């Protein structure tokens, strides 16, 4: 029997359609359809100036909106062959890590909602709100910040605000372990999560899984290792695990929050004085740049004539992660409830994934979705 879930369904927060092939309660295989939120963002960007493009890039995804502006700015800084002042690099890393913390909290809360653990769901949202306050203190807005510009950041952070953020992060660190332990040691939560939705390292390589999903399956790959600020300035390590199940993915995100807290403390203690913005002249040229978004690797490929964006291509992590979820994780799952929990554990962000339209032979518009024509039925 084919059981369709979505696009509007109590279990889903975003419009996507899961088609589960079931035998009784057992899920044999799954197919994921998307294409509901395609807005044509890359097409709109072409022909606009890069000053306008950065605002469009922010609205590729609402949850990890910050990293898109940073990657866009760094792509154009690479075309110019310049780097922003060191204080601006520190402030960018600070916002990036705060954004990662809030994104991982909302990802884990969605997973706990999917396994019907309402208490932890509420605790995660409770922990997230102070982090949102910290983002608002620093940038002036909660979600779409408008904080990055090509050449630096828009405004300097005041000393008292940095101290408040340090206080918020210290408070978070003090009570954070209690909630991780609730998940880690709780027997029922463990039973619902361990050995469910397993993906091996080979499958992760074949499906090109990135971010916490790949790292939970043993792919030790984090683009921050190659980023100049993280390489030169901070002391941190890549978090990875071997199990590859729902438990590993959730714990991987929890451990990354701990690592982000460590980085934020280093940033606030060592932030150098100086300018936060410099004027950069953009020549004509092409560049690509990769950054680590909360969900994995995000790539921007941009070509400009010095003023207008000629061509831009954005590759977000969720497309690969949702793909491996349908291909490898949702094969032979014990119950339908576990299948929904597995889908929630890959932290799907549908708004990220859909930016391409293809024309068929008759010239009709058709939204491109990697899985639409391909069926992963055995």
């Amino acid at each position, binding site marked *: 029997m084919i059981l369709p879930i979505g*696009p*509007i*369904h*109590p279990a*889903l*927060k*975003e*419009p996507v359609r899961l088609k589960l092939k079931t035998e009784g309660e057992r899920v044999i295989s799954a197919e994921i359809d998307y*294409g*509901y*939120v*395609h*807005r*044509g*963002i890359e*097409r*709109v960007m*072409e*022909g*606009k100036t890069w000053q306008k493009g950065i*605002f*469009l890039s922010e*609205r*590729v*995804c*609402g*949850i990890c*909106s910050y990293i898109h502006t940073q990657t866009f700015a760094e792509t154009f800084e690479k075309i110019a062959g310049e780097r922003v002042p060191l204080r601006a690099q520190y402030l960018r890393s600070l916002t990036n890590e705060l954004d990662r913390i809030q994104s991982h909290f*909302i990802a884990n*809360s969605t997973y706990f909602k999917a396994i019907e653990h309402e208490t932890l769901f*509420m605790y995660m*949202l*409770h922990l*997230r*709100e102070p982090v*949102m306050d910290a983002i608002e203190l620093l940038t002036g807005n*909660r*979600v*779409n910040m408008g904080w990055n510009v090509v050449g630096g950041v828009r405004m300097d952070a005041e000393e008292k605000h940095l101290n408040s953020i340090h206080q918020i992060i210290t408070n978070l660190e003090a009570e954070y372990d209690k909630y991780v332990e609730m998940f880690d040691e709780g027997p029922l939560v463990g039973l619902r999560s361990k050995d469910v939705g397993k993906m091996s390292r080979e499958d992760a390589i074949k499906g090109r899984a990135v971010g916490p999903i790949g790292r939970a399956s043993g792919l030790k790959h984090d683009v921050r290792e190659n980023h100049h600020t993280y390489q030169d300035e901070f002391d941190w390590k890549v978090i990875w695990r071997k199990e590859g199940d729902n438990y590993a993915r959730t714990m991987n995100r929890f451990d990354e929050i701990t690592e982000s807290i460590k980085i934020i403390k280093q940033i606030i203690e060592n932030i150098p004085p100086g300018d936060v913005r410099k004027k950069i002249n953009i020549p004509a040229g092409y560049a690509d740049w990769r950054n680590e978004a909360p969900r994995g690797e995000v790539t921007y490929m941009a070509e400009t004539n010095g003023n207008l964006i000629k061509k831009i291509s954005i590759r977000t992590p969720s497309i690969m992660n949702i793909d491996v979820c349908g291909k490898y994780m949702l094969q032979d799952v014990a119950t339908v409830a576990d299948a929904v929990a597995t889908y929630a554990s890959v932290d799907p*962000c*549908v*708004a990220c994934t859909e930016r391409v*339209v293809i024309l068929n032979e008759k010239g009709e*518009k058709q*939204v491109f979705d990697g899985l639409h024509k391909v069926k992963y039925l055995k």
Partner: protein
Amino acid sequence: MLDALKDVVRKSSIHVCLINTGGCNGCDIEVVALLSPRYDLEQYGIYVHNNPREADVILVTGPVTEQWKKNLQRIYAKAPEPKVVVAIGNCPLTGDVFNQEGCSVYAPVSDFIPVDAEIPGCPPRPSEILAAILAVGPDAIAAKGRKKP
């Protein structure tokens, strides 16, 4: 008598369905933030469960994309009367940054379904969304329910 009783019931238990018609997710996570203990949506008798067949209030976020042109009206028809539509954010009102040459969005959302309340902002703060739902929700639902179809 019956109307008065129905008014009380309708005002104190509001079911909300969230439809993302192509937004960037920013407004959606602000609605999720409303569930957090700080704002606590459920203390007002509002329950978010994303099921259009039981919904009293439909929250629409996002400009209307190609796939949603027909589906939005279908989902609106499935919600039982009386119902109220609240448009969250700039996208359902004007299309925001997406509504430019070469785009594939069909804003505003009021071309497709009737909208009762609008909250501008990119995204609006959770407290604004809560205030709008409370301002329009209970009374409008009760008033619509009294009208004979």
